[in-house]
């Protein structure tokens, strides 16, 4: 056997780079060169909470994932581990030979889609090929179009963009549609605030998406495709460009794919910053170069889509699942998940959670398992209040529903939705009325303005929420919100409008008491709505250190040195600086 050395991988996705991973890589390069090692670049490893991440793999295959590896720590790893052969315990996040405090993060995950993420080099097709890349395409191309579609139907895959439409059925519609020209389009306009699964997949494993799209093109008989990516994802676009170029050169895209007569030209279209373009008809209008405004359906894109031609539209995660279906076989693939929701789902765990990151879990897992077992629980061990799922189209679920199984149908029944996979955890310091206002502000400003219920209705709802959070809520506001919300849900033109009231309706359903407190008692229990709170110094706890008074930007705090201080509420602007600065927890919200 040839002499083997250590392998070193650095996670270079946007999150990693933002945390300084590029600098770490540049530092490692010459240090490792002395030992004949070239550090490998890879995508997101999923553990955003300890970026930058560096993985060291021993000649025996033992893996050691190190976290928070800033430039200076790169040296320690090289000296101690690569040269000295001793793992650096202090920095160890995860290992396949050792329990760590983060082992729980992986324990309940089922990594199918993400199995190659953080392993392969996203900028090298050879690296993808080394892990069975494009084998699924070769396998699919041995089958007839009908059989490929049947296989996808058999897998039970449902759209990962949010609504959960059965993918195989969609493919069949596009296949059945008559037309001399057909398109395959990938929705990579991941606009949900709080979601970054698609970005991570595009940055970490772009070929999986390309392979899935090519299989789809083969199945429905398309020869041209587009990936519509948000312009806010420059790194994803760069890596996709490179991946498409390499796939063309290697005969997996372009003309005469794998030596057959099947041709598929794939292009990138950059979005230009409009959330509504995540809606399929708006997205197609945007590719055509128009304003991204939705149109009524039917006709559905499968029969009349891009430039009036039959068009298959799925999102990033859906396409990325396709190679796995053919690699594993539909039967094996569908063993994971529940009766009606098959496979896995990737979630972006964010907000007030201990371990932020990317997690792939089997469908049907409970919310509690995701938040507490995978994510490690609520940050600073505060009390869990709610989890927001599905972005601006989704809803907030309370603690009572933590044992709800996470699948399409249960979530919809609970007033939320799967959405694209953003999971934002909220604790006692989050005001639910403020959260509802936050989402509505977002959808309101992103409303394209075409249909009245969305354009006018969301505006009226927002006005009511604004006055409630400002302390001017009126009796009857809650009922008006409900009435408006239901009307918009039932009458708006597209998915954006129909789901825009969800954050309000779901918080009204589970956190009605917070609305009532705001309106009837002028109280914000989370201490977020500034008009409803006052800062107060507890005289018994105040030591008179003057720190708060010196930091107050408006001189609202007075008092003698070593004597309890007082805040003048008529001057106070409620910025909260005093409370942050106080070392004695003497300042509270009332």
């Amino acid at each position, binding site marked *: 056997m040839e002499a083997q050395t250590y392998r070193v991988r650095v996670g270079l996705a946007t999150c990693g780079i933002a945390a300084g991973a590029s600098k770490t890589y540049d530092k490692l390069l010459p240090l490792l060169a002395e030992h004949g090692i070239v550090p490998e670049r890879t995508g997101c490893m999923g553990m955003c909470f300890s970026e930058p991440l560096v993985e060291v793999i021993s000649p025996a295959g033992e893996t050691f994932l190190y976290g928070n590896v800033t430039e200076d720590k790169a040296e320690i790893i090289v000296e101690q581990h690569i040269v000295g052969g001793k793992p650096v315990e202090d920095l160890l996040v995860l290992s396949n030979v050792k329990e760590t405090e983060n082992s729980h993060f992986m324990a309940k995950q089922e990594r199918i889609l993400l199995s190659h993420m953080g392993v392969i080099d996203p900028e090298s097709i050879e690296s993808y090929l080394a892990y069975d890349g494009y084998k699924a395409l070769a396998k699919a191309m041995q089958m007839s179009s009908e059989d490929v579609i049947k296989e996808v139907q058999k897998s039970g895959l449902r759209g990962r963009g949010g609504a959960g439409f059965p993918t195989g059925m969609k493919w069949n519609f596009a296949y059945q549609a008559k037309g001399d020209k057909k398109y395959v389009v990938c929705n990579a306009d991941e*606009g949900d605030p709080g979601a970054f699964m698609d970005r991570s997949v595009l940055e970490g494993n772009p070929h999986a998406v390309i392979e899935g799209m090519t299989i789809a093109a083969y199945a429905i008989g398309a020869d041209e495709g587009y990936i519509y990516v948000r312009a806010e994802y420059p790194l994803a676009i760069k890596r996709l460009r490179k991946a498409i170029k390499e796939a063309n050169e290697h005969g997996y895209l372009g003309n005469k794919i794998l030596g057959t007569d099947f041709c598929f030209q794939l292009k990138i279209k950059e979005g230009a*910053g409009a959330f509504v373009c995540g809606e399929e008809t708006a997205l197609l209008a945007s590719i055509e170069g128009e304003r991204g405004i939705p149109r009524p359906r039917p006709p559905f894109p499968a029969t009349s889509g891009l430039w009036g031609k039959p068009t298959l539209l799925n999102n990033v995660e859906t396409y990325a699942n396709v190679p796995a279906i053919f690699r594993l076989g539909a039967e094996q693939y569908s063993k994971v998940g529940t009766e009606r929701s098959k496979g896995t789902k990737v979630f972006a765990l964010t907000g007030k959670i201990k371990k932020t990151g990317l997690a792939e879990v089997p469908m049907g897992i409970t919310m509690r398992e995701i938040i507490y077992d995978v994510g490690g629980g609520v940050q600073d061990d505060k009390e869990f209040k709610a989890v927001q799922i599905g972005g601006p189209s989704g809803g907030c679920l309370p603690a009572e529903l933590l044992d709800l199984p996470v699948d399409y149908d249960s979530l919809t029944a609970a007033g939320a939705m799967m959405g694209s996979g953003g999971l934002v955890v909220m604790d006692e310091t989050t005001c639910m009325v403020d959260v509802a206002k936050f989402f509505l502000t977002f959808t309101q400003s992103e409303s394209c303005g075409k249909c009245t219920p969305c354009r006018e209705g969301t505006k009226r709802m927002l006005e009511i929420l604004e006055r409630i959070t400002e302390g001017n809520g009126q009796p009857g506001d809650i009922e008006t919100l409900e009435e408006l919300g239901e009307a918009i849900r039932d009458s708006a033109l597209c998915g954006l409008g129909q789901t825009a009231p969800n954050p309000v309706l779901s918080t009204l359903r589970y956190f009605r008491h917070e609305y009532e407190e705001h309106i009837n008692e002028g109280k914000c229990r989370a201490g977020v709505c500034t008009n409803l709170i006052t800062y107060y110094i507890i005289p018994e706890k105040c030591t008179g250190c003057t720190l708060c008074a010196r930091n107050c930007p408006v001189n609202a705090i007075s008092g003698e040195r070593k004597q309890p201080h007082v805040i003048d509420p008529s001057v106070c602007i409620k910025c909260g600086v005093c409370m942050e600065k106080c070392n004695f927890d003497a300042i509270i919200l009332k």
Partner: protein
Amino acid sequence: MTEAQKCYAEDPFDYGPVDEILERFRGEKGTTIPILQAIQEVYGYLPRQALEYAAKKLKTPLSRIYGVATFYAQFHLQPRGENIIRVCQGTACHVRGGAKIMDALKDQLGIGVGETTEDRKFTLESVACIGACGLAPVIMINNDTFGRLTPEKIKEILKNYQD
């Protein structure tokens, strides 16, 4: 000399890049957005002259181009600063104190959202979500992302772009 070029012969505005961009996308379908993106890439914003010129050459009403340009958040009809600061307004950033980061930036730069500093060094913008939620709160300056921010860190970050 084409007719379009003649009309603009006396104009000091440099139309060369627009010509080059239109040539690059000739014959392709659905190119309005990529053309506008390319024009903005060159000039930093969408100058009125460039849009008028492009409309003429594309034989498209200016109103249609204006409609597209004003629909998408990415496009700007006014000149912008050398460095574009985009503050993430996503959910994760919101619950982790993104508003305080925005306040700190407004304070340090002395401008509001959508405004440019007098020396044209910085433009402050908000963005729906950068997608780096794991590192919330985050901002982007040009194409660089900065995460796990506190108001205190803002000063230091800005310093690197000041000169």
